[in-house]
């Protein structure tokens, strides 16, 4: 796209080194710190000194933190599944059905990203308290669907939009009912979109701090994000080795999912959001 003259070459190499360092160094430093023995934590050695897995072993054998990890898995899988179902139904409805109020509901869903989460929490906290759900997985499962609703519905709508109406019509003529058309004809064609939304929902729930910190007051039900904050913040002396090791452990599931399903994720996310 650009002419590779001297000016561009200078710009290219300077930016590559500066931004490259900024982008890649911190994570390497995190791994580097996590692998150091406690006595070496404060040294500036960059992967040169002695290495140990002690920090990881300490975190992985901590029953409390492993409990948080389990809770995170339950909540993230659950809300991801719920979000995918809800968004698929809604996206299909928006794409292939015409009814009164459709445009209005579409607009509202789109707006839902823009409602300030912290203010919603005030009332959600009260509602969950009244329903007796405060501190249960359900309070998080239900709340997390909202993160995915706008992007999820839109992404899946754009998938369903691409399915020709003729295909649905011919299924109808063959005598299929609405449910059969949906499960046998339409949904299988949108699987890539659904995978994208499932990942998106999982990552959001896994990474959320605000809701899990507020809605789950019971230590046994905390998810990893709020659990680690409670564990490490406000401690008199901080063990950075433990903190870096636990951060890596918290980052691994979402990173693995991402590495394997990167293609789906980037395509789905950008195409869904850009096409609207």
């Amino acid at each position, binding site marked *: *796209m*650009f*002419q590779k003259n001297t000016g561009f070459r200078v710009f*290219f190499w300077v*930016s590559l080194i500066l*931004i490259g360092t900024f982008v*890649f160094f911190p*994570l390497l430093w*995190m791994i580097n*710190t996590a692998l150091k023995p406690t006595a070496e*934590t*404060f040294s500036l050695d960059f992967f040169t000194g002695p290495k140990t897995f002690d920090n990881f072993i300490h975190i992985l054998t901590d029953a409390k933190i492993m409990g948080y990890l389990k809770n995170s898995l339950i909540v993230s899988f659950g809300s991801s599944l719920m979000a995918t*179902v*809800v968004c698929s*139904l*809604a996206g299909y*409805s*928006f794409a292939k059905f015409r009814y009164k109020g*459709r445009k209005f509901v579409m607009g*509202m869903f789109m707006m*839902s990203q823009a*409602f*300030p989460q*912290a*203010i*919603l929490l*005030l*009332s*959600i906290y*009260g509602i969950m308290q009244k329903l007796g759900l405060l501190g249960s997985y359900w309070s998080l499962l*239900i*709340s997390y*669907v*909202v993160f995915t609703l706008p992007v999820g519905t839109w992404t899946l709508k754009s998938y369903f939009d691409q399915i020709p109406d003729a295909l649905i019509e011919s299924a109808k003529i063959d005598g299929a*009912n*609405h449910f059969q058309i949906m499960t046998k004809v339409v949904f299988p064609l949108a699987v890539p979109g659904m995978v994208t939304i499932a990942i998106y929902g999982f*990552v959001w729930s896994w*990474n959320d*701090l*605000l809701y899990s910190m*507020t809605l789950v007051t019971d230590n046994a039900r905390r998810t990893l*994000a709020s659990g*680690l*904050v409670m564990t*490490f*913040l406000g401690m008199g002396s901080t063990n*950075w080795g433990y*903190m*870096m090791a636990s*951060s*890596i452990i918290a*980052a691994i599931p*979402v990173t693995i999912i*991402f*590495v394997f399903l990167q293609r789906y994720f980037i395509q789905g996310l*950008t195409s869904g*959001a*850009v*096409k*609207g």
Partner: protein
Amino acid sequence: MREKRSRGLTDAQTGILLILPGLAVFIAVILFPFIDAIRISFTDKSMLFPDWEYVALENYMEVFRDPYFGKTMLTTAVFVLGGTLLPFILGFIWAILLNQGFKGSELLRGITLVNWIIPGIAIGFLWSWIFNGQYGVLNGVLKALGGEGNTPWLGQTSTALLCVIIARTWQMLPWYMAFLLGGLQGVSVEQIEAARIDGAGNWKCFTRIVVPSMKNIIILILAMGLVGNLQHFDLPWTMAQGGPARATTTLSLEVYNTAFKNWDMGKAATIGTIWAILLACFSIVYLKQVRDSD
């Protein structure tokens, strides 16, 4: 006859039935709580006392009289603007570099995105460590270069917010990069070739052709970025808990602290309502952009 019976519901009825689960969640977790929060903003509700009553605009008066409120707004504005523009600019440059398609650029793109996908608390912990006043690597490097190397970057009011913005930049750069790479791939090569024949240099090609043809996507991601930053909670909280001396207290932290630390629901709802009005302004731009690009 048979066909009619097997279909059961009409198309419109089916469409509405499909939307019901989404609508139910939307009403339960967004619409009702939102309206309820606006109602609470007119009350003196507190989690510490069971009784409450309507106090009209008293909370609003209190918020506007609060000398800290202006400071919170300013902190929010600096965080939102810095945390949007910085990753946007760096993400744009990074996208341009990776778009050159050199060996390994695909891999670099993939690794870059890891920064964005990992939990905010991990990012907060990491940057707290880098900026640590005694043993952080930043101070370590500065010391090795002959500096004092004992600056409490997160512990002093002059630099704390900047540190949070830098961490936010690191987190969001990949997100901008992903969208801008997509945009760059849509720029017409013919147009650039034509301009080059007319004697346009790289900079001119960039400002006259590349940026204008990516206008929609640029406005879209900037609007999304601003809304996202107005909502953002994790980094200022994990890195500094809003301190020191409120230097990193943005609106979302202020609402959280007022509600769940001081248990003053009325005042928290009031700040939240003012905040919602701000968000609505940005969202209108965003929605309009989405509609235009449809």
